[in-house]
Structure formats: structure tokens, C-alpha cells
């Protein structure tokens, strides 16, 4: 009687029948033998008809036709990363427990940037952890509603690591931290300030979150002493709701860029677009016009590449010639600099030298203008900057 429960359950699951009356191996062997005899045969498997019983087979019953995985076009193949600089930076990252977006987002340029020529290695440090509160369809970074708490030592650790490198330009980016009261704005601003304190000559670009569109938070970051404030539009307006997390919107990101420009006039603003998500050329043009109106001076275009099977499929692979067209069109439209290519990313090294020169030149011009005394306007701007810097310093 006690055997009826397991037998019923086993039968219901369509599994092998056990004989529960005796524990001896011979009885079990007999049961197994009968299952083998009465169950699916090799011919059944070969014909794809062996679907009886859940325990019989551990794989899909019928062979599946999988769509052939397209190989990446020639221009997207990259060399495997390696070399002295790459290895040195990798070790440093681990020992200082720093996360790089290069690794977390599986950027194809990691070998090129970290192993840059003549020691021009550039890395994009990701602060506030390696886990984001948002889940955008193009991004490989881990997502969670409750990422680990912020590390109060991070600003100093980051600054020390960066200061110990022989680099002239660093990009600092972060995940979204919608779980924090200020979305992490204060923490990010502190990272920027500390880096600049330890190495004032270092050119610093921050690829910033949208902080939910709150301009007081944007101000904290934009006025923390950086040289370039970047915030990515990612894609055209029509595709934004499906490509980005719902908490990010096209208009909100434009407002962040406009706001940063107004709050920190000397800072260069920058944005980036992924191409190949299904956008039309007309839509790209409109996005470029919107960015220009927001005061953006640098724009980059790169090919969207699917980081893993769990992410959005690529709609189109644009050939290098089209990227070149966008670069020319962008320059003609009035951007100060356009970086455009299949593997170009927001912080790709290609524009670094120019950005360096450009940002330095801008800072110098602004200084000269102030020295000449542009009148109350300059004084007022300077006062406003000092006030916001003071407010930021109090945090």
C-alpha cells in the first residue's frame, strides 16, 4: 500500500516504472530491463518520434533547424587583446577591484584601447559597481533592482589608480543607480573631484547617467571639474522606448545635455548613437539636429553589436562607407568633432587626441576671456559656477 503513492506519481510523470515491493538490485534491474525493452528504441530516436515520458530523453525530441549564425563582416573582426599595456592594466584593475565598462560590456576595442600605441592606453572606468538598475536591450552590463551598496572608498581608490597610470585622458562612466536617493550623482561628482585633485593635469570625460532627468543632480556632475560631459542618446526618438530601459527617454536625455551645457558653459558636451537598430537615415539626421540644438559639440556613431543571445538582434550592419558619410554630414552640420566607424564607441580612443586639444583650447580661451574682463556676464557666470561648485562641495 505504501508503494501506491510513488508508483502513481511515477506513472503520472510518465517515468520509468519502479517495483516498490523489493529493494533488491535484481528487482530494480528487472524494472530497468522492462523499461528498456518497452520504451523507445534507437529507431524511434533516429526518426524523431521518441517523445514518450519526460525522463526518457534530456534534450528536445526532434532535431532543430537553427538559423545559421551569420559571421561578422570583415571590417568588424578584431584581434584578440594582448600585450604589455593590456596585461598591466588588467592586473591593476583586478588588484584595485575596479570595474571597467570595457570588460563588463564586452567592448570589441578592449585590446586596442588598453594596448594603445606609445603608451596612450585609455580605459573607461565604470564606477558605482558593475550592476545597473536598468535593463536596456543593447547592454551587457548586469541588472538588478538592488545592486550592492556604493563603496565610500571608491572615489579615492579610483583616483589613486588613475593617477598611477601614464595616461593623459580618462573616461569615467557609471551604471544607473535608480536605487540611490540622488541616483548616485553625489558619489559620481566626488569621484570626478578626487581624480582632479590627485592629477589636475588629467583630461577627464564623464559619460553620465540621466539621473532621472533631475537637473540639480546633473549640475553636481557637470560642475565637478570635468572637461567633457557626455550623455548618450543611444538611438533615434522612435526606437528609444524599445531599445532603452523605460526609465530613459529621448526628451529626457536631450534635456540632460541642454542642462549640462547651460550649467557648465566651459565644459564640452558629447553624445553617441548606435546605428543598425532599425533607424532610418532621416531619423538619424533629425537626431543630429536635436543634439546640435542642445548644444552638443561632439557626436560619435558606432555599429550596434549584439553582446549575447539574450540581447536585441542587430537590424543592419552598416558598411564603413556609410559611417564615413555620417562623419562628413556631421561636420558639415556644425559639430566640432565627429567620430564615426563600425567599432567607434562613445569613449573610443580615436578622438582622444583631438578632444584633448579641443578641450584644452576651450579652457584656455575661456580663461583669456575672463582675464580680459568680459564684464558682468563673465563675472556672473563665474559667480554662478562658484556657487554651484560650493553647493556641490558641501555634499
Amino acid at each position: 500500500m505504501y508503494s501506491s503513492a510513488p508508483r502513481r506519481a511515477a506513472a503520472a510523470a510518465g517515468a520509468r516504472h519502479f517495483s516498490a515491493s523489493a529493494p533488491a538490485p535484481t528487482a530494480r534491474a528487472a524494472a530497468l530491463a522492462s523499461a528498456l525493452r518497452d520504451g523507445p528504441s534507437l529507431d524511434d530516436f533516429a526518426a524523431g518520434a521518441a517523445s514518450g515520458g519526460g525522463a526518457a530523453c534530456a534534450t528536445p525530441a526532434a532535431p532543430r533547424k537553427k538559423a545559421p549564425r551569420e559571421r561578422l563582416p570583415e571590417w568588424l573582426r578584431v584581434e584578440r587583446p594582448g600585450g604589455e599595456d593590456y596585461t598591466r592594466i588588467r592586473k591593476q584593475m583586478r588588484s584595485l577591484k575596479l570595474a571597467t565598462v570595457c570588460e563588463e560590456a564586452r567592448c570589441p576595442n578592449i585590446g586596442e584601447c588598453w594596448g594603445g600605441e606609445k603608451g596612450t592606453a585609455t580605459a573607461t572606468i565604470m564606477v558605482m559597481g558593475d550592476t545597473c538598475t536598468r535593463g536596456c536591450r543593447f547592454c551587457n552590463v548586469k541588472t538588478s533592482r538592488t545592486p550592492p551598496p556604493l563603496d565610500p572608498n571608491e572615489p579615492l581608490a579610483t583616483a589613486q589608480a588613475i593617477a598611477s597610470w601614464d595616461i593623459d585622458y580618462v573616461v569615467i562612466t557609471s551604471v544607473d543607480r535608480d536605487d540611490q536617493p540622488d541616483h548616485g550623482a553625489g558619489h559620481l561628482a566626488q569621484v570626478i573631484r578626487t581624480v582632479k585633485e590627485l592629477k589636475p593635469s588629467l583630461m577627464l570625460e564623464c559619460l553620465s547617467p540621466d539621473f532621472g532627468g533631475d537637473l540639480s543632480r546633473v549640475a553636481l556632475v557637470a560642475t565637478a571639474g570635468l572637461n567633457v560631459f557626455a550623455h548618450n542618446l543611444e538611438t533615434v526618438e522612435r526606437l528609444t522606448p524599445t531599445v532603452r530601459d523605460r526609465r530613459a527617454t529621448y526628451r529626457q536625455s536631450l534635456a540632460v545635455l541642454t542642462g549640462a551645457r547651460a550649467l557648465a558653459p566651459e565644459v564640452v558636451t558629447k553624445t553617441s548613437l548606435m546605428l543598425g537598430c532599425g533607424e532610418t537615415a532621416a531619423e538619424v539626421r533629425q537626431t543630429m539636429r536635436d543634439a546640435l540644438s542642445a548644444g552638443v559639440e561632439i557626436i560619435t556613431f558606432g555599429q550596434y553589436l549584439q553582446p549575447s543571445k539574450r540581447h536585441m538582434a542587430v537590424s543592419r550592419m552598416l558598411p564603413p562607407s556609410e559611417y564615413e558619410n555620417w562623419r562628413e554630414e556631421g561636420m558639415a552640420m556644425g559639430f566640432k568633432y565627429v567620430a564615426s566607424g563600425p567599432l567607434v564607441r562613445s569613449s573610443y580612443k580615436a578622438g582622444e587626441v583631438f578632444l584633448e586639444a579641443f578641450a584644452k583650447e576651450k579652457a584656455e580661451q575661456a580663461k583669456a576671456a575672463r582675464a580680459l574682463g568680459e564684464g558682468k556676464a563673465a563675472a556672473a557666470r563665474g559667480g554662478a559656477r562658484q556657487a554651484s561648485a560650493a553647493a556641490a562641495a558641501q555634499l
Partner: protein
Amino acid sequence: MSLVRALLTAGRSALAERGGVAAIRPFSRALAQPVRITFVDKDGSEVPVDAPVGKSLLEVAHENDIELEGACDGSLACSTCHLILDEVSFKKLKAPEDEELDMLDLAFDLRKTSRLGCQVKVSPELAGMRCQLPAGTNDMQQQ
């Protein structure tokens, strides 16, 4: 009730006499049987799989190479693991939480029997369930 309990107690002690845990294994083995469910791909092709109890439909899909996105790692920040279930199975499930409903509302091709794959855990009662992948995630190809 007490008769059943008596029988079960007798059974359990009898089993225990015969060798402890190894003898009790038939119960847990029955419970741990993989569950046969079928994914229906966008092109209509059917993929029967054996799903381990307790895993989410999203995990099962990924383990069987089904092209189901999971952009937010199951944190209810997107609707890319949207699946359309058969009515019978759908009714067996516990009602979705508000957070899941919020994200489901934004899913493309939403149906009465839609659920997010990351929120549905495989259980034995779902044997025979059919999970249809929706036609698309949005009008991405509009040119």
C-alpha cells in the same frame, strides 16, 4: 484522514527500515522529474523541452537555445522575455505581481494569456504547457 496518515507513517517507517535516504529517494525522484513543455518559435516551429522544476521559463529557454531576450536579467525592468501561454496553463499560475503587470503592459503583441518568462517557474502541474514567442518586440524593421 487518520487512515491515510497511518498508511503514510507505516510507509515511511518501512522505507526507513529498508535503507534510509536511498529508500526514500523514489518520492523525491518523482518530484524532481523534468517537466515537458513546448516552446513555439516566431516562425511556428515547435521545440519540446524538458524543463527542470523550479527554473524560470526564461532560464529554460536560454538553456535550450530558444531566442528569447532577457535584457534585464529577470529584474522586472523590461518586457523582452514576454511569452504567450496556453489558456489551461495560464489559469494554473499564480496571478502576476503588480511589477510584472507594469512591464507586461508595455510588451508588444500582448494577449490575455501573456506572462513574463522570468517570473514563471516550472512546476509539475505545468506539464504540456505551450509557450508561444510573440511575433516581435516592436516595429523595429520599419523603413
